[in-house]
């Protein structure tokens, strides 16, 4: 990963020693003699070719055709893409995806950071909280959707009942444009805040405690410590969670799909007014309800382009920060911060590897 590679001191020396190796003999040995190694790694590559690469390549081909899934493929050139750029429903889905992504990711990452910060203080029952934070992440999404649609139900929901009891008006959570987006965002926040908090917690634990102690001795408040020490030191971890949340946010599908159910008809996909219709959900409807695989593939590639643009922005943000370190145009206060950052580099890289480790442990 880019973050950890750039942050890890000493990686630059290893490739150099490789290049110096004068061992030309080894490289000229025939491929045949390596067959046991190739056989050993073959299962993964064969599965990847069949289930990974082939569908990807085939979807490129499909996006230039009209195909209903049974009849013969009919090549239509760029017609699917031409339709795509002027399809208002597609643009609605793009806007929905971006809006839901913003209103879910920003509060979620802030909440997660806050929770991790509190957990990192010496409070009791840390183990309990860590498990409790993780449970939403492993709960079946269908069950979650059932609960959420009851809680947010327009006329019989818990929230609206509470609002009525307080004398406020009912909010049509599941039938108005913003109500639907907020409900989906709340589902995402509920599900992933704990996950991100655990990653931040791992990052926090590798921040040297003497920094905090020094700040306390100097009379800094908890708020000051949080914003002046915790957040700057966790920057690589925050960027990591931002990137994973971007990937998740752009491919948001299950939440709106189970919330409104596409089982009965394609018209209910995404809820009233298409307010919860995300890009991947629209692609799913085109492929498996309208049986228009060509158009669904075109949508998939449009999503790829969008993801690439967002990834590029992420990459630029990251690179610019790193360049700023030695840049002469950096103002004084930033240079001072850069010096502080240099001191904590080792700590940062540990934080990232710790967070990766947590993630891998969780995955397994």
């Amino acid at each position, binding site marked *: 990963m880019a973050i950890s590679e750039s942050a890890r001191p000493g990686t630059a020396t290893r490739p150099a020693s490789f290049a110096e190796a004068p061992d030309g003999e080894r490289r000229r040995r025939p491929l045949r003699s390596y067959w046991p190694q190739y056989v050993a790694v073959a299962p993964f590559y064969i599965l990847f070719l069949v289930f990974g690469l082939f569908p990807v390549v085939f979807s490129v081909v499909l996006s230039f055709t009209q195909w209903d899934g049974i009849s013969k493929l009919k090549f239509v050139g760029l017609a699917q893409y031409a339709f795509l750029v002027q399809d208002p429903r597609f643009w609605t889905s793009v806007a929905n995806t971006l809006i839901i992504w913003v209103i879910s990711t920003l509060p979620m990452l802030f909440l997660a950071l806050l929770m991790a910060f509190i957990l990192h203080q010496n409070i009791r029952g840390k183990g309990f909280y860590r498990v409790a934070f993780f449970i939403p992440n492993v709960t079946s999404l269908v069950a979650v959707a059932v609960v959420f649609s009851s809680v947010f139900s327009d006329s019989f929901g818990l929230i609206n009942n509470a609002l009525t009891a307080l004398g406020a008006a009912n909010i049509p959570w*599941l039938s108005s444009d913003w109500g639907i987006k907020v409900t989906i965002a709340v589902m995402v926040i509920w599900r992933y805040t704990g996950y991100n908090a655990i990653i931040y917690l791992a990052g926090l634990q590798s921040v040297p405690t003497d920094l905090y102690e020094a700040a306390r001795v100097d009379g800094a408040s908890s708020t000051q410590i949080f914003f002046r020490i915790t957040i700057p030191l966790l920057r690589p971890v925050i960027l990591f969670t931002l990137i994973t949340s971007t990937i998740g946010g752009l491919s948001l599908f299950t939440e709106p799909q189970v919330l409104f159910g596409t089982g009965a008809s394609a018209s209910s996909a995404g809820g009233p007014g298409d307010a919860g219709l995300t890009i991947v959900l629209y692609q799913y409807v085109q492929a498996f309800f309208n049986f228009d695989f060509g158009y669904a593939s075109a949508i998939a590639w449009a999503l790829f382009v969008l993801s690439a643009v967002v990834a590029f922005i992420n990459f630029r943000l990251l690179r610019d920060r790193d360049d700023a370190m030695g840049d002469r145009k950096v103002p004084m206060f930033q240079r001072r911060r850069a010096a502080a950052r240099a001191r904590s580099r080792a700590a940062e890289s540990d934080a990232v590897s710790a967070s990766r480790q947590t993630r891998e442990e969780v995955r397994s």
Partner: protein
Amino acid sequence: MSISSDPDLLVLWYWTRSINPNLLDQAARQIPDSTKRLRADVVGGNYDSKLRTSLAGGAYIPDIAGVNSNCSLYFPNEERFVDLNPLGGSELKSQFYDWKWQLGTTPKGRMCFWPMDTGPTGLYYRNDLFAKAGLPSDPDALGEAIKTWDGYLDVGTQLRKKLDIALDINAGAVFGCYLNSSEERYFDRQDRPIFSQSGSAVRKAWDLAVQAAKLGVTGNLQTSNDQNAGWSSGRVAGHLEAVWWGPILADTAPDTKGKWRLANQPVKPGNSGGSFLMVPTTSKDPQAAFDFIKWLTNAENQAKTFNTIQLFPSTPASFTGDTLKSDNSFYGGQEYQTFFRKAAEQVPITYVSPYENLCAPFGSELTNVETAGKDPNQAWDDAVAAVDQVLHKRGLV
């Protein structure tokens, strides 16, 4: 290529609760009047896309397959399915409801989708709430009062005025029910769109549904949780739906047992849902497959299926004698099965086009009118434009 290589074994694909398990057990030992056996595989998830995948790949295709009420989706590829008429199907035509038989007949007149169960519709309503509102609560009297859709709107308006409750969940339910009881739908038999012509059935259904929403006859309940809560709490006093909805309602609102009744819906009943069986041309023994189908759907076995899993027969002869049993306690003793048998006799013959799934914008625009107060004329124009655009892209206009 078939799924099983055993020449004496036919493989059937179906989904849960679509075929009587007792009959499948019997066929697993031996298909009656045949030397073959049957293996029945339940296929979960998105049934149609799995079936289409096997047909597209030309491999692992079942010898017999169930198809839901969207069987017309397969009409453009009808050459992939066996015409069951020459195998002895045509002789049995008179035993089935003609409208059901027509639904399974392709535009070229081939019988590729054999009738299983049906879904005649009617008005489920809360007898006690109607009485409380001073409205006709007896099934016959109510049926008389809602003989026309104007009468239906009138009854719904009074329910809203007197008890502040809805007669149905949302405008979409009324829209769908109207179309399901109409001879004319979105397309004509040559698959040419007719919805935008003036006075089309789709437009009439639309106007009716918009009117129902405006008068508060429908309750603007768009999610199934809200809808279920509506019926069980008594804030929705009815629903226009098919026979198979009865058991679902009994599960959803068990506390309302004995308070529901059934009345004839306005004008005439329609059909909603109901499935079919088909034999792909790759089937290893189409004749044996048809023998199984013939046996599974004979009047006696359809009666058994109704008694076991409440799927409504497509053969009128299933009702003769006393073989059909039904528990009428949920409907206060009203004869559930007799009501729908009479409805089934009046369902009109219609044509469902393979391209109706592209007409979803009508449903979503109707929801916009009901939930967001969108101008109905604007919503109609938007729906027509959206469907036209897709039909144009598909080369259908």
